[in-house]
Structure formats: C-alpha cells, structure tokens
C-alpha cells in the first residue's frame, strides 16, 4: 500500500507539473457549465436541483476521461519509463492501483471544483442536498469506472491515440447498453436474461437512479466491481505486454 501511495503521489504531481491539469479542469468546468445552463435549461426549469448538471456527466466523461487515461501506460511504454518503474521494487498491482488512484483523484478534484453550482442552487432555492451529495458520489464512482476502462486500454498500446479511441468506444458501449439502440439488437434473438444482463451494465441506467438520490447499494457495488474488474484486467495486460 505504501508503494501505491508513493506512485499515486508522483502521478498526481505530474498532472500539475504540466498544462494537462489546467486544461482539463478548465474545459471540464466550462463544459459542465455550458451543458447545465443551455442544454439543461437550469434556470428555465424553475426547480432547485442539480439534475440538469449531473445529466450530462456521462457524456462529458465519455470524451474527457479517456483523454486523461490514455497516457497512463501508453506514455510509460513509449518513453521507456515502464522499464524503470517495473524494475523498482514494486508489484504490478501496486503500480496499476497507484496510477489509477492518481487519475481518479484528479477527476475528483475537477468534480469538486464544480462546487459553485451547488452554492448557486442553494442560493436560488432550497434543494434536497442529500440528493445532490448522492449525485456527486454517483458521478465520482462513474468517473472511476470510465477511468478503469481507460487505464486498461492504455496498457494495451504505446500509441495514445489508439488508446483514446478504444477506451472511448468501450466506455460508449457501457454507457449506452441500457438504451433501445443497443438493446434492440439483442431483443431480436437473445433470451430476456441476456437482454437484462446487458441492460444492467448500463452506466446511464445506474447513474440515472443515483442522480435522483436513490443510492442503491447494488449500484454502488456495480461501479466498484466494474472498477475492480478492469483494474484486474489492467494488471494482466501490463504483465503480458512487458514480457512480449
């Protein structure tokens, strides 16, 4: 655990040593703002909640999180620092966890910096702050799931662009799997069990519930187990790739 923390600390410092952190946070804040106020019609709805704010998070994450995740491993392999890292006395699991945590915490920082909108909605009305806390928690968990997918894809290639595109595609499938667009494809031939399973993998469906303040432990468990699964695959990919 100590090594995980040391690696995470180094990674996180790395974000802020480059323009990456600034660019990401500014764009994230600008886009959440734009989506909330224009597409979400924050004022016009006349309701004191953050539903129009949270509703667009899956779509923002779809683009922005693969962009943060793409460099996690691909860059290390490209510059050769992977060899340095993996010959230090750390296990692959510690390295995978450390890198993931740094990236996830970084997203958490960006998410936390949206706090002015929480203040705004409290000034304008009397929102249910419990629902908002649930929304933030759900958004953070979903960001983790996107990030775990992205980290795993980044380990598969030394080309960051390829890592980005594959990660965005996989994230897209997970996001959309609850919608008719995807489900119709399965309805035609698959038994209901499979259709339900595919639907249950959907980030949108899960997040929708959490966003409305319904924190079902199953949804929390879903995101956490998804993170664990992709990190587990990430460890395997790193092991396999470095020996080939």
């Amino acid at each position, binding site marked *: 655990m100590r090594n995980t923390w040391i690696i995470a600390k180094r990674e996180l410092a790395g974000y802020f040593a480059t323009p990456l952190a600034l660019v990401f946070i500014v764009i994230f804040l600008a886009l959440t703002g734009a989506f909330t106020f224009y597409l979400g019609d924050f004022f016009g709805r006349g309701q004191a909640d953050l539903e129009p704010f949270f509703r667009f998070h899956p779509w923002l994450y779809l683009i922005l999180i693969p962009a943060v995740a793409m460099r996690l491993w691909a860059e290390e392999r490209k*510059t050769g620092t992977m*060899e*340095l890292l*993996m*010959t*230090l006395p*750390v296990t692959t699991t510690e390295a995978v966890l450390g890198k993931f945590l740094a990236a996830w915490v970084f997203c958490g920082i960006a998410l936390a910096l949206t706090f002015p909108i929480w203040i705004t909605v409290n000034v304008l009305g009397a929102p249910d702050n419990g629902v908002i806390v649930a929304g933030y928690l759900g958004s953070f968990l979903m960001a983790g799931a996107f990030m775990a997918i992205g980290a795993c894809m980044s380990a598969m290639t030394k080309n960051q662009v390829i890592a980005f595109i594959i990660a965005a595609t996989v994230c897209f499938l997970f996001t959309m799997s609850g919608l008719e667009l995807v489900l119709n494809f399965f309805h035609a031939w698959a038994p209901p069990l499979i259709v339900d399973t595919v639907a249950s993998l959907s980030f949108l469906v899960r997040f929708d519930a959490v966003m409305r303040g319904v924190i079902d432990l199953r949804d929390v468990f879903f995101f956490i187990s998804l993170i664990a699964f992709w990190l587990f695959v990430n460890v395997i990919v790193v092991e396999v790739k470095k020996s*080939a």
Partner: protein
Amino acid sequence: MTDMIVLENLTKRFGALTAVDDVSMTVGRGEVLGFLGPNGAGKSTTMKMVAGYLTPTAGTARVMGHDVGQAPLQVKAAIGYLPEGAPTYGDMTVQSFLKFIAEVRGFSGAEIGRRVDRVREMVALDEVFTRPVETLSKGFKRRVGLAQSILHDPEVLIMDEPTDGLDPNQKHQVRTLIKDMAAEKAIVISTHILEEVEAVCSRAVIIAHGRLLADGTPEQLLSRDGRHNAVVVKLAADTADPVVAGLRALPEVAAVNPLDGGPVNGVAAFRATPKDGRSIVVPVGDYLRSENVTPEEMYVERGQMDDVFRQITLTDQSEAVGDA
C-alpha cells in the same frame, strides 16, 4: 556469497526469434563484467531478464541468492538497474525524481535527503538539481539515470550502455565512478565501445546471436588477436635487411613482415609476430643489442579489441563457449 549473479541456461524467445540462447555465467563481488556484443545480440534482453522486467522462457537468473522468477521483489531491491537509454520521468525535476526513487526504494524521513544528496554529489548534479529532467542535456539525463540506479547503494549494479551518447569527459567521469564502486559490488555493464572494456572491466563476455561466445579478462581476449605481443621495430631502411633476416631466425618469432605503406623518410617499419602469443620483446631487444643496431622506435602491440570482437562475432556462431 561470492557469486552474486548466477545465470543458468537463461533463454528468451520472442515468437520464432531466440534472443538469448542458453546463457550460463556467474558474476562475483568485485567484478566489473563487460557485456559485449553487436547490436541485437541479446545483451539488453539478458539484462532485462536479470533485472526482473522480462520473464525468461527457460532457465533461471539468481541475484544474491533470490530467484528472479520466484522472488522478483527481493531481486529488484538488491539491484540497481539503468535501463537502455536511461529513461526518467521528464516532467519531474531532478530532485523530485530522485526523491521518488528513494521513497520507492523504502527510505523515509531524513534518510531520503541523505541518499539524494549523496548521489547528487557522486554524479555531480548540483547545477541541474531543480530543473525538470526533460530540459537537461543528454549527458545530464544519463547521469540522472545513473544516480537513480546507485541511490540505494545496491550490491548488484546492472547498467545498459551507461556511457552511450556521453562526451569523452563525461565518459571518463562515469568510468571513474564505476571503478570506485567496483570493489564492493558486482557490476555488469553492456557496451559496444571496446575501449571501455579495457578501461573499466575486470572481465568481459562476448555474446552474439544470443549465445555466449567468449568469457575472460580483457587481456585474455586480446591474446586471441594474432598481433597480441607483436613487436614493431622501426629502423633506417638501408640497414634493415640483415636485421629482418636475423629476427626471422629467432626461435620465438613466427614471422617478420613490413608494415603497410613501406619506408617513410628512410625509416622502415617491421612487425615481428610471436609464436603462441608469448612476449618476445626481450629476445628481440637482446638480438638488436647484440648486433649493435639502434632502432628508431620499438614498441609492443597488445592487439586490438576490435579485431578480436570482429573475429569472434563474425566467425562460427556454433563455436562452443570456451575460456579465452
């Protein structure tokens, strides 16, 4: 424990390519082993396996008694490893990079500062200490890599081309550093700069096509060159013929041949090559004195590492491993 690194039948295949083929050897404390071979010979692959980065296809590598396959963390803790190209995290400053390495190496508190200061002095990083690594010159980057590898004062040091891309002064510094650490450690360096082997190594192995072709001291390898211990004599061209005939008649001398290019300014040069590679400088000198000939110049050749290298790596690849 004298054998600090033990390789047993170490083999690595990438698909159909056998990069390292059944290599066995040991390295003990106090040795500086030069790992020689043409590009693509398997030097780096071998080092990566010992350092725990690549998993061997067959065979084992043991460092300080730990099998790299079974106890990779113990091996990695015991080794200082400089990967090829000395990769470092470019966006970190030298200071924060070395601090990070110290933390990962298990140091804490004030010890981190002590360790970092120690290597900062050893490899002379003062003037760039607070600059991001990516802004440094190639020579400094390599020294940062070097600093990283010796930070924990490891018993075993493995360095893949530590002086590649350095200027002559920097090369000299790095070699001095290696020599200074040699007594306490087992050091393996790979290189294709052959002068380096003579400059720092107590032992050299030559590897080509993944196979170990020669193993011995630099002196032993040099003795494989036909010119090893040959004596070159330069003397006035008009007095040369009887002397050459006399030298040819000496029992220790195999042949006497004029050097390429013929006489220059009335001075002819000849090379007397010995039988069996033994030193012939004494009999040649005695003969010249007995004939009252004063040579313009006379010196012993040691042989060329380049020639030995070419001879070993270009000839029969299936040649068995033998002590030189």
